[in-house]
């Protein structure tokens, strides 16, 4: 193999190291400078004049040393990284344990035509290995070598022949399945992401019109005057609009040029305007699929598709996004092409009628508790009672849209629920790490239970999905199918 000799990072990593150390040292220096200027003591400045070059010199030395110390190689299916100046570390990561490899191109990296690689396994400290600067060619080579036979452990001599056939296959696949987020959709995604802020500002704008509507001395007008003293109102509106625009900008930067493609056994996702990020997720490591519909997007039939994969977690946020925005009608083709093991059609088993009472009681109580202090203290606070019907309507949606399904042929558990967003999660039975039935005293009374299924994702604790208030007999059925040994 070409790769048996030890390789180093791109020398530009020295520069990155220096920058990083200087950045860390900047704050204490700035503090010293600031305090000595304040006190008018310039003795400290002389000290700084010595310290700054010293730190620069040391950080360059440190950068060079760590660059010299950093070696990596792939031997017999193991990625071996040796690094460290004072504390020397040898990391051996078995290829079969590697979950994902991220390629990140930050601004600095792009400037010098290199990329950053992050290698992750399930569990442990994340990411396991960081290579701050490797040339594109090396990155591509590493990625291919490490992910190609992620599920096989082959000796050196066998792998050469194997590699050729895999290469052929992946070239064909690359052409076939490629999906890109269009600019139009990116914009829709961005505009609808801060949906609560948007709604709030529209709502507030609506309030100001109430005055005109009712005439000058109408009692409601007094209320709006009290609530929206003009300068206060304008400030709030301004803040909302600015934060909305910022969130649009952020979303555009993050998801610009989002594309996903299936090649070999991996899903390759790449995204970002300033910082390009490429993620490869082995299809076999996907634990569950999540379809999320926020209220605003649901109204227009838009959905987002997420993936739960071991090696990634919610803490890492967007890396679990499989596609930012799809038409509901496109979902079927999307999954059939990219993740065919997930059948997305289901028939929802809804909650029993008696579950509605639980939501009704809960949502009425909470709304009343929130409204009560307003009613007592605020002028015209009785208007806060409007919260009650709103909250009940929300509870009704939760009740109406929650449910579950079990698909025998693909042995898949499907759970649908709503908090604010409606979430549908698809979990193959063999991915469920453990599951739970739980009952509160009230649920026990009416023979209802909450079901929770947990998959390996999100680091040590896993990700849990639940549906509340499922009928007792349905729970027994689910327990039966989930416990059935044949379904393992």
């Amino acid at each position: 193999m070409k790769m048996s000799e030890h390789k180093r990072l791109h020398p530009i990593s020295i520069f990155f190291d220096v920058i990083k150390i200087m950045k860390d040292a900047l704050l204490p220096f700035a503090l010293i400078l600031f305090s000595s200027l304040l006190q008018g003591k310039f003795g400290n400045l002389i000290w700084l004049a010595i310290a700054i070059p010293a730190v620069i010199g040391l950080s360059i030395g440190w950068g060079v040393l760590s660059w010299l110390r950093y070696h990596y190689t792939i031997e017999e299916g193991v990625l071996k990284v040796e690094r460290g100046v004072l504390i020397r570390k040898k990391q051996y990561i078995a290829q079969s344990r590697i979950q994902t490899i991220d390629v990140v191109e930050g601004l600095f990296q792009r400037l010098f035509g290199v990329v950053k690689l992050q290698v992750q396994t399930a569990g442990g400290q994340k990411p396991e290995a960081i290579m701050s600067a490797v040339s594109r060619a090396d990155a591509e080579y590493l990625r291919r070598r490490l992910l190609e036979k992620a599920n096989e452990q082959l000796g050196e001599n066998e792998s050469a022949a194997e590699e050729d056939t895999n290469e052929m296959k992946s070239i064909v696949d690359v052409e076939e399945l490629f999906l890109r987020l269009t600019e139009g959709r990116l914009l829709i995604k961005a505009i609808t992401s801060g949906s609560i802020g948007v709604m709030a500002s529209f709502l507030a704008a609506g309030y100001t019109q109430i005055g005109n509507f009712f005439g000058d001395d109408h009692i409601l007008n007094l209320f709006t005057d009290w609530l929206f003293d003009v300068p206060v109102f304008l400030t709030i509106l301004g803040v909302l609009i600015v934060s909305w625009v910022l969130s649009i900008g952020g979303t555009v930067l993050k998801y610009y040029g989002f594309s996903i493609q299936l090649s070999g056994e991996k899903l390759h996702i790449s995204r970002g305007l300033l910082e390009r990020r490429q993620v490869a997720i082995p299809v076999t490591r996907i634990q569950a699929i999540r379809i999320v519909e926020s209220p605003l997007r649901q109204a227009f039939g838009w959905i987002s598709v997420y993936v739960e994969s071991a090696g990634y977690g919610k803490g890492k946020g967007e890396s679990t996004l499989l596609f930012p925005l799809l038409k509901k009608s496109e979902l079927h083709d999307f999954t059939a092409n990219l993740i065919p093991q997930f059948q997305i059609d289901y028939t929802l088993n809804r909650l029993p009628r008696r579950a509605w009472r639980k939501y009704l009681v809960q949502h009425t109580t909470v709304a009343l508790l929130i409204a009560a202090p307003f009613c007592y203290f605020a002028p015209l606070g009785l208007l806060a009672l409007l919260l009650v019907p709103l909250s009940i309507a929300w509870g009704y949606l939760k009740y109406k849209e929650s449910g579950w399904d079990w698909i025998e042929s693909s042995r898949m558990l499907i759970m649908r629920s709503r908090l604010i967003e409606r979430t549908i999660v698809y979990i193959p039975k063999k991915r469920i790490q453990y599951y739970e039935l739980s009952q509160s005293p009230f649920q026990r009374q009416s023979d209802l239970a909450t079901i929770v299924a947990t998959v390996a994702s999100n680091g040590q604790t896993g990700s849990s999905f639940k549906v509340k208030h499922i009928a007792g007999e349905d729970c027994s059925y689910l327990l039966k199918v989930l416990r059935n040994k044949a379904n393992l």
Partner: protein
Amino acid sequence: MGSVPSRRLDDRAPKVWRVGGIVHSGLICLIAIGLTVLTKIFDLPWYLPAIALAIAVMYSVFFVILYPKLRWRRWRYDIHEHEIELMYGILFVTRTIIPMVRVQHVDTMQGPLLRHYGLATITFSTAAGNHEIPALAVDTADRARERIAELARVSREDV
């Protein structure tokens, strides 16, 4: 929700939990007494220590008298060939089922308190977190640990 698991924790479990309860209610009571002293010194309103003492008393009653008994009464477990089943919780009752194939490793452990009473806790892990069966007699715990380890190994070879 069907039949409940059959095995209970060791009879001595409530006693151990009670001793644990006495220790941390003792701490809470000390804080409440300290507050009473402070009130005397700084001449604060009388109801502050009263509230603190009431909380301390309720806490102690719950964790020394009620909780150990109730918790023990609810706790059940079973180790089947293909899964481990746990049931626990006083108001909110949870039944957890862990398929044997998902068990990654299993340990028994004892704190000083458990050791004094000859008890041990079994902990086992999956790729999505740990679970435990608390307070079993040491030999029961050891046997259960061996059994889980064996079953987990076998079921993995099956798949």
